[in-house]
């Protein structure tokens, strides 16, 4: 069964080719090709996955060699796919969530004039993303890595008539490209260290050759990390993600929530050996995660655009994953990735449906009272929100996030500070989630409804909602039944989390986390629902209003980058538009021309001047002759 592996990425590619080359396809055909190709590969993934789990390959991984990309003096990257439990989880999430989102889009985008183009891009994206996670060679992974960047660019700027969409798309591409470039340098170093970019060989080589804390390991890890934070929108390269919400909602759900932005998490998990060889970098990963989740969480609190709230929330949740990776809780990070993919995709899709029925109104303050008017959307959204806010016991998000909180304290590399940051983050998360729900669904209605979504939108929502609630039960803490299906699977590839000696019972931490989460919800409920005036009162004061502006602008990162990089670059280029080197040559030309003009002055055409010249010349020569 597993030789079908190549079909998983090929199907979306074929879909892309059909959609890109075939003109004048009817909308039904387009939807059929677009949704069908991805759904088929989801189906194959499930079959292969079941097969993989029921009788795992002896080496723990299955690899399929397709062809040698090229072979130039020892550098011979191969086009080959590699399936182990880590990539299996990713492939499953990607294909499954994509299939649902494609189904959703087939209705959501039906009015759009570039229906085929949309699905072509989406299929291309799924293909690139699958290549990214299935690649056995880092170079091939880099192909997927850049490919998803391209698709993200195309899809953010999908509605290209609006200038700002294009700018947001450019910003996303360029910022991630900065990270990618650092990553490319990392690949160079790796190649010269090991003469190959074949991932298993690299990992084995790194564990044999490098000492823990070796400077070379540290450099490589830092460079790879740079690539990861670019793609995963972590500090300090996070600024592109909120702007990326200019794309259609399904795009935000698929690319900027569920899959592409977690590529950084995948990269770090995949190259975990190298990160373990560099404790400094690994700690840095945790710190970046912690800081990012706090900053982004605060920013989420201040937004009024529902999609921007979700965007900042995504940054913050990926911060959690980084934190988990940083403390060595590999399986917890991957678990949170999966759960997050479910509930964040759900939230984006539901938000998209809300926005659609509210006549493209993004502002939450202009929504309200939608609870009774679109109950299905409300309940599914609520399910996702519960998971995001990590409502104790009933939501999947609780189990995954609790695991991270627990490891942030108790893992060997965890510290109290990281735990505290994560805890405060949990409070903020609960707060902005509740705020979003109250503003959108409660209170009085402010905008009249458009037409309500149909089946193809609601079915994916319901499936995702069910998953957001129940997916957590495949991995339960030991004091609640101790189900470890997920970590058993993942730990075939990733090492187990090493714990500190002598930590107190997990239960206390769960309790604290639960209380914090609930109090966050209550606090927000109290402010927004019970005492609506209090926010305005706060805003009129100096400190909170500054804070609000700071948070709203995403901590002024954009402004700073603008002033530091964008403006100077633009100024320099516009000054030097005409190429000062060329001016040198032009100056040379002008000098010659001037010389010519001066000399040609002497040719006045007046005969008497010439005669005078002759006379003067002879006199001078004669005088010289006599004198010397």
């Amino acid at each position, binding site marked *: 069964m597993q030789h079908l592996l190549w079909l998983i990425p090929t199907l979306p590619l074929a879909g892309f080719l059909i959609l*890109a080359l075939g003109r004048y396809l009817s909308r039904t055909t387009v939807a059929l090709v677009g949704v069908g190709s991805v759904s088929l590969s989801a189906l194959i993934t499930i079959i292969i996955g079941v097969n993989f789990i029921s009788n795992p390959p002896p080496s723990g991984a299955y690899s399929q060699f397709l062809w040698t*990309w*090229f072979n130039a003096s020892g550098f011979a990257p191969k086009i080959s796919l590699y399936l182990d439990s880590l990539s299996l989880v990713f492939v499953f999430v990607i294909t499954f969530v994509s299939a649902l989102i494609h189904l959703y889009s087939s209705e959501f985008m039906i009015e759009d004039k570039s229906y085929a183009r949309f699905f072509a891009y989406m299929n291309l994206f799924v293909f690139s993303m699958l290549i990214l996670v299935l690649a056995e060679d880092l170079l091939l992974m*880099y*192909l997927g890595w850049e490919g998803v960047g391209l698709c993200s660019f195309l899809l953010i700027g999908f509605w290209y008539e609006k200038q700002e969409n294009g700018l947001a798309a450019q910003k996303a591409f360029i910022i991630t490209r900065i990270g990618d470039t650092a990553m490319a340098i990392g690949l160079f170093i790796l190649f*010269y260290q*090991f003469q190959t970019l074949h991932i*298993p060989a690299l990992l084995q080589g790194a564990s044999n050759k490098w000492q823990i804390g070796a400077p070379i390991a540290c450099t490589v890890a830092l460079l790879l990390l740079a690539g990861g934070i670019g793609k995963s929108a972590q500090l300090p390269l996070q600024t592109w993600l909120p702007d990326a919400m200019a794309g259609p909602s399904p795009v935000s759900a698929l690319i900027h929530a569920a899959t592409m932005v977690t590529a950084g998490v995948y990269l770090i998990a995949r190259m975990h050996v190298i990160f373990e060889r560099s404790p400094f970098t690994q700690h840095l990963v945790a710190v970046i995660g912690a800081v990012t989740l706090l900053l982004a969480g605060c920013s989420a609190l201040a937004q009024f655009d529902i999609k921007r709230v979700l965007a900042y929330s995504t940054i913050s949740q990926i911060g959690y994953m980084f934190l988990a990776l940083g403390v060595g809780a590999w399986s917890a990070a991957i678990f949170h990735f999966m759960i997050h993919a479910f509930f964040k995709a759900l939230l984006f899709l539901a938000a998209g449906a809300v926005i659609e029925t509210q006549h493209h109104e993004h502002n939450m303050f202009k929504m309200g009272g939608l609870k009774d008017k679109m109950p299905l959307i409300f309940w599914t959204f609520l399910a996702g929100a519960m998971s995001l806010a990590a409502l104790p016991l009933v939501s999947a998000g609780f189990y995954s996030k609790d695991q991270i909180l627990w490891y942030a304290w108790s893992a060997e590399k965890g510290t109290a500070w990281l735990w505290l940051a994560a805890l405060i983050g949990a409070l903020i998360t609960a707060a902005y989630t509740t705020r979003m729900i109250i503003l959108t669904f409660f209170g009085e209605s402010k905008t009249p409804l458009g037409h309500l979504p149909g089946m193809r939108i609601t079915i994916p929502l319901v499936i995702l909602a069910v998953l957001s609630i129940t997916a957590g039960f495949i991995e339960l803490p030991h004091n609640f039944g101790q189900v470890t299906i997920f970590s058993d699977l993942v730990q075939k590839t990733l090492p187990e989390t090493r714990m500190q000696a002598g930590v107190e019972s997990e239960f206390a931490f769960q309790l604290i986390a639960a209380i914090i989460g609930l109090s966050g919800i209550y606090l927000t409920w109290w402010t927004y629902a019970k005492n609506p005036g209090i926010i305005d009162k706060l805003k009129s004061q100096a400190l909170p209003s500054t804070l609000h502006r700071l948070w709203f602008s995403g901590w002024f990162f954009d402004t700073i980058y603008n002033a530091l990089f964008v403006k100077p670059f633009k100024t320099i280029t516009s000054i030097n*538009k005409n190429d000062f080197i060329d001016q040198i040559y032009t100056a040379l030309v002008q000098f010659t021309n001037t010389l010519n003009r001066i000399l040609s002055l002497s040719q006045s055409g007046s005969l008497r001047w010439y005669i005078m010249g002759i006379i003067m010349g002879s006199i001078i020569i004669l005088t010289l002759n006599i004198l010397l």
Partner: protein
Amino acid sequence: MAGGLLAWLSGKWEPYLPRTIALISILIVFGLGLTIWISHASLSFYDNDGWIIDFKRIWIPDFGISFHLAMDGLSLIMVILTLFLGVLSILCSWDEIQERQGFYYFNLLWILAGIVGVFLATDLFLFYFFWEVMLIPMYLLIGIWGSENRIYASYKFFIFTQASGLLMLLAILGLYFINGRNTGHYSFDYFDLLNAEIAPTDAKWLMLGFLIAFVVKLPVFPFHTWLPDAHSEAPTAGSVVLAGLMLKTGAYGILRFVIPLFPQATAEIAWLAMLIGVIGIIYGAVLAFAQTDLKRLVAYTSVSHMGFIMLGAFSFNELALQGVLLQIITHGLSTGALFILAGSLKERLHTRDINKMGGLWADAPGIGTTGLIFAMASCGLPGLGNFIAEFMILMGAFKANIPLAVIATIGLVLSAIYSLRLMQKVFLGPKTDEHSIKDFSLREIIIMASLTIAIIWTGVYPQPIINTVNSSISKLKEYYSSAVMIEEPIVKKEIKYLPKSIDNDGK
């Protein structure tokens, strides 16, 4: 084979006959070239010394000048590229050129003949002859069929390349006499001169003579300024030939002449050349960002990409050289495509100013899609040929000089910036013009499709090209290593844990 070569050259000298004959003759030659390639692809390129065809006629025996053409993998690939782009350039000037068609195609074919000759000549005198042959028709091409500012541009082009060409002539003569004095055998033949023993100082000056000629042609910072003018004023086919082929003669010259003839002297200035290359990469990219003229923009991207060639050629290792070869080819394809694109846009909009464009995707998704593909190719997106080339060059350069390679890598970010700006300004954004434009015609679709297929092919499976040039590259490697024996900074440790699968990959 010798007869085929003769037909090759004479077949192109079809003067004063319009486009059909031009197309047919070049197609015949292209077919010939392909046949040679395919028939040799099966043969091994590794045995003997890699020369596939050798054709020699005595020309002016008194001075040791002979009509000596020879072909190895390197020149074979270059010739194939020349003919491929030649076919396309004739196709793309099909409707663009209305005046004096006969003379136009005469010039175009002469240029192509000159370029093919440059790639094949192994007699230095003959080489110089072909070098000039391609120059003058190009001057006419720009001067007669160019746009508004054509006279200025053509003069600039001519003076730059001619002045540097004279330096090369001096160097050729110098080499001729020095070698003749040392051995008593006066000859312009490449193979005779290859083993010439030259005093280091002389070698340095001679090498500089050659190098400057090639570097101006390439062009590399700070000699690049003729390029944007020549490109923006030339007719479309002229730009295509200029960017796709004529620049490559510079690169070819470096690989074929500068390095093998003067390995020692080249090694000494390698770091400087790499530095210049890196400056070119960054500088070209920064300037490309600022341009508003579509063709100028593409021209500056050429400068940037040529910087990569410079960097790779002087990195002194096989990987980088393979990358250079690929870069030569893929840059020819991608830039050629961008120029054709610019030409067809100009035909429709009558402007090259990108500020006056915008939102063209809506009317012309075909143009938009190809524009996207080639803009992405020029910013090095994996899966397209340029990525592999640049990656290999950077990897090779990384081995030779880490700081420079890292700076060059920044060029990747800059290239993304200008490519996206190009896309945004031309195809995306709000529409600025009320008129709707027509999408590609069938002829243009054929041109673009063949280019697209070629660039994707080089991006996904470049192995045939790599195999073809392998022998030439490894010969070059020998010259290097003879020169750089002294220092080999990278530690090559035996690696035992390589998986076995690395070895048995398909060739």
